[in-house]
């Protein structure tokens, strides 16, 4: 058993999940991998298990937040010191992972965020998407007090303190932005590191055009509410 665990939420990702698990194990052999299948109806569970991951299969679909939190609860229970999040759709390059993990081990921040925009990387996005990103960045900057370039990045390494925090509270849906404010309110530090982003290999983005308005409203509300809350998260 290693001291770091990779949490991969997966919903019907049978085509890519094995490749993601393998690529992570190739890039960083010294990590454990837990795949949380969020009520998948295809062969995600079998594929992930065959690839060598520890698989937690949720019997009903809890949504991305509930699935990811399952991973953090497992990490807390098993005493992992670091938890890593990386998308199962192949968008994130595991080659960056050793670097992110090293930054976490050096204590550069409670959360190390893999960011698309810190330095120039190969990643390009559409105009409307960039507009949304800028809006979110502004919102987070107002809430947190310092700029975070890639507010919607789901590529991150967190330490034990944050594992425990996420075990008791994790945002329900669209967690990326809310997490940043949550961490800030709980006096956790966030450190951004540039990473490569690849085009999605399979599956669809959880944020499509139809949902983007709901997304913006939800995130704005969540950030606003987070600012109204007391700092400590009460155990539920």
């Amino acid at each position, binding site marked *: *058993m290693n*001291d770091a665990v990779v949490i991969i939420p997966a919903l019907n990702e049978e085509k890519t999940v094995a490749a993601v698990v393998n690529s992570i194990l190739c890039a960083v052999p010294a990590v454990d991998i837990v795949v*949380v299948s969020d009520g998948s109806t295809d062969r995600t569970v079998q594929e992930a298990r065959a690839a060598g991951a*520890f*698989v*937690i*299969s*949720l*019997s*009903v679909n*809890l949504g991305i937040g*509930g699935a990811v*939190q*399952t991973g953090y*609860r*497992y990490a807390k*229970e*098993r*005493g*992992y010191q670091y938890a890593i999040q990386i998308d199962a759709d192949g968008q994130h390059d595991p080659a960056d992972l050793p670097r992110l993990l090293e930054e976490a081990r050096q204590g550069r921040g409670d959360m190390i965020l893999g960011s698309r925009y810190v330095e120039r990387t190969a990643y390009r996005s559409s105009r409307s998407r960039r507009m949304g990103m800028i809006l979110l960045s502004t919102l987070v900057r107002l809430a947190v007090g310092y700029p975070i370039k890639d507010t919607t990045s789901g590529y991150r390494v967190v330490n034990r303190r944050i594992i425990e925090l996420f075990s008791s509270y994790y945002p329900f849906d669209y967690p990326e932005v809310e997490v940043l404010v949550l961490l800030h309110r709980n006096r956790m530090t966030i450190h951004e590191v540039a990473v490569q982003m690849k085009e999605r290999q399979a599956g669809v983005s959880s944020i499509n055009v139809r949902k983007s308005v709901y997304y913006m409203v939800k995130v704005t509300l969540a950030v606003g509410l987070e600012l109204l809350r007391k700092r400590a998260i009460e155990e*539920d």
Partner: protein
Amino acid sequence: MNIYILGIAFSLVFLFTVVDLMRRRVLMEQYSLLWLGMGVVILLLSIFPQWLNGVAVAVGIYYAPSLLFLIGFLFMLGTMLHLTVVLSRLTKRTVRLVQEIAILKAELADGNHTHPDGTDKTD
């Protein structure tokens, strides 16, 4: 049968239904207080409709039945808010349960019940 008798009859049936649900433990006590209170208020207003008029005049409402609608509306608003709070709490607990069960099942299937420090946590 006039509306006066009908009102009293309705309130009694309502109260009886609530108490019966509580008796059969279909409705938990903590949620039934709200309905009991409502039943008592309806009953009292049916028996003493002049109370409604009195209150309406006192707060400056000229048409007394509209006060009744206001009270009913506010009560429904309160009840629904309370229900969504209860629903949220239930959702949170369900999520927790699903997560715990999934972790337990995964560990059971894995046959690995030891902590990283080597202690057995299945005791």
